[in-house]
Structures are given as C-alpha cells and as structure tokens.
C-alpha cells in the first residue's frame, strides 16, 4: 500500500456532464438586429468612423453566444485597439501610396512597371494584414480563462498566399482546393489553444473531387457562350471600321455589328449568374463542412454535419427580408421624390440643388446600409449559427487539461486590413 504523495493536488471536483449538445449558439436574434440597426444608423452619421465599435459589438455577440461543453467563448478585444491599429496602419499605408504615386510619375522603366509592382506589393501587404488580423482575433478569444494564439511569420504566409492565389487565377479556379488545403495547414500549424497545438487535416483531393462537378457546371456553359459570342463577331469588318474613325465606329457598333455577339453574350451572362446563385450555397456548404471537419487541436477532432439545405434556408430568409425591404424602400422613395419635388418646386438656386442631392444621397446610403444590415443579420448570423450547431467534437476531455500560453498581439494587422479594405467583419 503506497502513501499518498503530499505534493499531489487534490482531485478536481467532478463536474456533472452537461445534458446539452456539445456545441450550441445562445445568442438572441432580436438583440443582434438591434445592434446592427443602431450600428448602421451611426455608421451613416459618422461617415464610417463608428465601424470599430460596431465590429467589436458584433464579435462580442457572436463569441459569447457560442458555447462549447457548457462554457461560452469570450471576445476580449476593444474598439479602441481597433482604432489605434487603424491609425498605425495609416502611417504605413499613406507613405506607401505616395511612393507609388511618385514612382508612377517619374516615368522610365520603373514608372511603367510601377502599376504591376504596386499591385503585387499591395496584394502581399493585404495577405500579411489578413494573417496578422487573424492573430489579433485569436489572441482576443478566451475559453475557460485560456486564450488562443498564433505563431509564424506573417511574411512567409503572405508570399505563400500570393503564390497560391496566382495559381488559382491561372488555373481558372482548379487550384483552389490545393491552395486552401496548403494555406489552412500553414495557419492551423501555427495556431494554439493555450499549449494545445492545432492542425489541419482536410484533404485537397477530397475537396477537389467534391467540387469538380460544380466547377464544370459553371465553367462549361460560360466558355461555350464566350466562344460563340466572340465567334459571331466579324473581326475584319471591326478592324476596318475602327480605322475609319470614332464616329463611324460608334454607328456600326450600335447598329448591327455586335447584335449577335451581344445577344449570345447576354444569355451567357444571365445563365452564369443564375448558376452562381444556385451553385454558390452548395459550394459554401461543402467548403464549410470540409474545413470544419479538418480542424484538430491535439487529440480533439471536429466534424461537421452541416446540410446544404440549411445554407439554402439561410439565403432564402435573406432574400425574403430583402424583398420586403425593397418594397418598403420603393414606397419611401416615391413619397420622398414627391416631397423633394414639392419643396424644390421649380426654384433653380444652388441651395435647392444641394438639398435635392443630399436627399438622394441620404436615401441611397440608407438603402445600401439597410441591405447590408439585413445581410449581416440573416446570412452572417444564420451561417454562424448553423455551422456552430452542426459541429461534433470528439475527445472533448482534452479541453480540461490545457495550460495557458501565448500573449495578446498588437492590432496593427486589423488596422492594415481595414486600411487596405481586405478581410471581413
């Protein structure tokens, strides 16, 4: 019989296993709607300055509504951090833009290629920003008192991402599964929950095989249509007319010259848009399922039972609300037009022009913000909820024994992403 070692801590109190699903979303829809509507109004009146507070509110809502094993996540970031990150990013981006401008001015071989160079540099900087923004968000995610963190040089990721995205464009999308797989592996290899290392085990070939049909369904009619459309143009006649001068060119153009091509082109574009509308939710559901099912933290494995029908349901709700909003907007628009017309009533002064312009602009902005709010509230929240609630976690006991590690990182990445207009939320 062995004596109990005095240094061994007393056993942790056994927590009754929760009789609830492993992963849940608890957030209340009406709270989120109110948050978004208030945010949209304030965005309009502050011409966008309020976005840091709105983003923080949205993240707090989404994180704290997500519950794993009975405990909910916490977003510990603040709007001030995002604002400071943005201001720091400006000190990088403004000199950079000015440099590009002056180099382009200078002319010579550097000036002529400066367009391409600046595009490449800005794309690199954008990927760098996305990686660092991810690090910021991870380090501000806390679960059971331990934060996530991310290591790894952002520049290496940026170069990698640039390479793969170029490949995707050159291969018309076929390289997408390989690219996603490699980039996710990179990101998850450097992602940690406390001292628990992350991994990604999604297979590129699996995604390719699942997605190839969608690709074919989209690309084949598009290619056929484009070829038919271009083939129906009489190129020699086009050349002759272009040489003759701009007047004859336009008359020919608007006459019969491109009618055939325009008709085929129009039908092709319409069909492509319809295909995208139907295929995109299918693609999204497949992508989320594949991505979520590849996540690993130590021995903990995640699988997703997301159904395509759920994604269609989310988009369907969005379209419903958007339609209602459009009807309401049309009514308001007509009434507004009559009111403005009455007030302005034939007066030709500068002030009446300013008033009419401001009214039109305000209406347009309100409509756009309205659609954006509806999209956020139905699609973003809907997708978050159905993805979270269809997650299955195996070996969750791993989560009981994680030790804290990692430091909070700076928000410069977020600021850069905002200044360069990349990245979401």
């Amino acid at each position, binding site marked *: 019989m062995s004596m109990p070692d005095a240094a061994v801590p007393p056993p942790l109190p056994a927590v009754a296993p929760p009789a609830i699903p492993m992963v849940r979303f608890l957030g209340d829809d009406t709270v989120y709607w109110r948050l978004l509507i208030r945010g949209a109004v304030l965005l309009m009146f502050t*011409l966008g300055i309020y976005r840091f507070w709105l983003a923080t509110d949205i993240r707090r809502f989404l994180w704290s509504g997500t519950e794993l094993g009975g*405990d909910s996540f916490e977003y510990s970031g603040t709007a001030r951090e995002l604002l400071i990150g943005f201001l720091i990013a400006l000190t990088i981006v403004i000199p950079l833009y000015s440099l590009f401008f002056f180099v382009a001015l200078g002319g010579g071989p550097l000036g002529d290629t400066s367009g391409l160079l600046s595009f490449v540099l800005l794309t690199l900087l954008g990927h760098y920003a996305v990686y660092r923004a991810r690090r910021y968000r991870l380090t501000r995610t806390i679960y059971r008192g331990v934060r996530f963190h991310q290591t790894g040089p952002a520049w290496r990721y940026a170069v990698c991402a640039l390479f793969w995205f170029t490949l995707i464009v050159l291969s018309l999308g076929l390289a997408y599964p390989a690219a996603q797989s490699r980039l996710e592996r990179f990101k998850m290899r450097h992602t940690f929950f406390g001292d628990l290392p992350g991994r990604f085990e999604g297979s590129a070939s699996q995604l390719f095989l699942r997605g190839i049909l969608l690709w074919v369904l989209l690309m084949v009619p598009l290619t056929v249509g484009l070829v038919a459309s271009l083939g129906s143009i009489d190129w020699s006649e086009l050349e002759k007319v272009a040489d003759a001068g701009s007047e004859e060119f336009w008359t020919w153009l608007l006459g019969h010259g491109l009618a055939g091509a325009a008709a085929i082109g129009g039908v092709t574009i319409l069909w492509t848009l319809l295909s995208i509308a139907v295929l995109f939710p299918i693609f999204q559901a497949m992508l989320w399922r594949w991505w979520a099912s590849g996540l690993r933290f130590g021995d903990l494995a995640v699988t997703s039972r997301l159904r395509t029908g759920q994604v269609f349901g989310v988009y369907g709700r969005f379209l419903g609300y958007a339609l209602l909003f459009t009807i309401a907007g049309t009514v308001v628009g007509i009434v507004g037009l009559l009111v403005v017309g009455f007030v302005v009533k034939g007066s*030709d002064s500068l002030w009446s022009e300013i008033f009419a312009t401001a009214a039109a602009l305000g209406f347009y902005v309100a409509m756009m913000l309205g659609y954006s709010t509806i999209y956020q509230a139905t699609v973003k929240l809907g997708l978050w909820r159905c993805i979270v609630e269809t997650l299955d976690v195996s070996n969750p006991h791993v989560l009981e024994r994680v030790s804290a590690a990692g430091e909070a990182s700076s928000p410069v990445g977020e600021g850069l992403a905002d200044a360069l207009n990349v990245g979401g939320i």
Partner: protein
Amino acid sequence: MNAMTVAGTGTFFDGITTARREVTIELGATVMLIRAPDGAILAEWPYGGIEARSAPEGLLRLAKTGSPSLARLEIRDPRLATAIDDLSIPIDRSGHAERRDRTKVIAWSVAATVSLILVAVIGVPEIATRLAPLIPYSVERKFGTAIDAQIRRSIDTRHAGAAFECGNNQGNKPGRAAFDKLMGQLEAAAALPLPLNPAVVHRDEANAFALPGGRVYVFEGLIDKAETPDELAGVLAHEIGHVAHRDGNRNVLEGAGLSFLFGMLLGDFVGGGAVIFAAKTILQTSYSRDVETAADGYGVTLMHKIGGDARALGTILTRIAGTTHPGPKLLLDHPDTPSRVAFINSLAGSAPTKPLLDKAEWAALKRICQTS
C-alpha cells in the same frame, strides 16, 4: 425586507489551466472571497477592481481589472449577481455606464466627422494653394509630360499624331506665324519662369486648356468662334493665368487630399462609395470655380499689359455660352457666364488699346487649321 445576499456559488477559471472549479463566493465588506470546495481561498477580489466581461445573457462574467492573468469568475445566480452589482461601482449591469461611454464615443465621432468635412471644404484648398507653388518646375514639367501623353490620347481620337496639330502644312505657315506672334506678345508680358508649349489642334469644340508644365491646347473650334485677335488673346491670357498660378499642381494636390480624407479616413461603410464620389466631385468643382475667377482676373491684367482689349474675353464667353446649356449648378466648374462677364468688365475698365495683329495676320490665323 429581503435578507442581504452574503454568499453564493459560481464557476472559477484560474487563467493558468482550463480546469473548472465550482466555488463559493463570500461577499465581504471590501473584497469578494473566492473559496474552493475544500475551503482554501483561491482569490480575493476588491469590489473597486473588478469588471464585467462580455458574456451570454444570464451569465455574469467577472475579471480582475488590470491583471495580466485571464482568471474569470462566472456567476449564474441572479441574486448574487445583483448583490455584486450593488457593491461594486465598476460593475453596472443596467448598462448606464456603458451607454454613457458609448454616447461620448458617438459624440466625438460625429464631431470628428464634422471637423473632417470642414477640413475638406476649407483646409484642403488652402493647403493645396500653399503647397502648389512649392513644387519645383522640373517636377511639374515631368508630371505635365505624363499627363500630356494621356490627354493627347483622349483628344486625338483618330490617332492622327502630328497631323492632329494645325499649322504644319505649307499653306498654314502664315497662320502659324501669326499665332506665334500673338502668343509671343502674351508670353513676353507674362514673363513666366517656364516656357509655354502651345499647340492648335483639330477639334470642333470652342475650348482651350493648359496643363501643368506649360503645355497649352487650343481647339480649332475656338479659333472659328473668335471674331477679333483680342478675343483669342483673352482666352489665351486666361489659360496662361492657370499656368502662372500653378493651378494644375493645385488640382492634383486637392484631388489627393480629398482622396485621402474621403477614401481612407471616412466612408468605410456600405454605400459610402457614393458619398465619397459625390463629395469629391462637388468639392472639386467648387474649388475650381474660385480658380477660374482668379484666372479671369489674371487674364485682364495680362491683356492690359500687351495693350489688348480686356473685355473681349467676356464677349467670346457670351458667344460660346449662347450655344451650350450650363447643366446643374452644383457641377459647374466655372462660375456662370454672366457673372464672369460682369467681373471681367468691372476689372477691364476702358483703357486705350492697340491692334495685336494686323488684318492679314488675323485672316491667316483664322485659316491655320485649313487642310486643303
């Protein structure tokens, strides 16, 4: 009267591992004691030093302010939560404190927006006006050459190249000589630090404009509309005014300033693009109206210097304006013609004039673009 809550239960995470501990919380006079089931004190948190963190509805999640540790105390018992709320000033579950802070933020943001707009309306043209003369002429010329290439491509729609310019054929040479004599008088009187590079081109519009660096384009349509050498000279003098005032540079600086303000700082929201575009367009055309007035004033002075009739600019403007519709006032980049003519006439007075070109020279100039 309800009994004061002095203790309750909650969940504690120590921020070192993810282990969950069910704890008892004792509300002391100044501190909150967090006890493990075996009685050991896990933490002592003073009421003034705790804050509420983001948590789902019905859960009060507390942390110690200013501590690097991520220790969290989670309370689901509503009476305990209320008691802590009462005892602790930083904890305010009614949301008043947060609303006050948020209102301050919003007020400052709106104030910042208003001041940024004021900067755009007043500050940007001021700064551009002050910076424009500081740009060295060598830089302006380089910039002008780059712009000239683009402008040339857009106005020479048939890509005629050298044939686009008037006055190169044998028959047009006297017209070219007359034009050069007229420009020469103006240039000599203007005494600009950089040479002008004028060109008459085959375009039907009655227009002329100057680019940074000294390039000036005069359209065939303008020469057709002009009835006296003074009218043509008046328009040229106005364009020379733009060159002298470095208006091309100012335009670029104003555009950059507005792009920065309305592109980067403000407007990052859905639909913001339209606001940005509208703001930039309206502001740029309003700056432009002031600049045009200044060029009109310069033109009058220059015409006086060469002994020409300064009122002639007003005459040709009226003739041209008679055939075009001004369009929305907001988008006018020139002040309206009657105002311009009144301004020009008020400055021109009635000084003695001399003929700038003789009849033969003027007749030749009118034929400068004839191709037969």
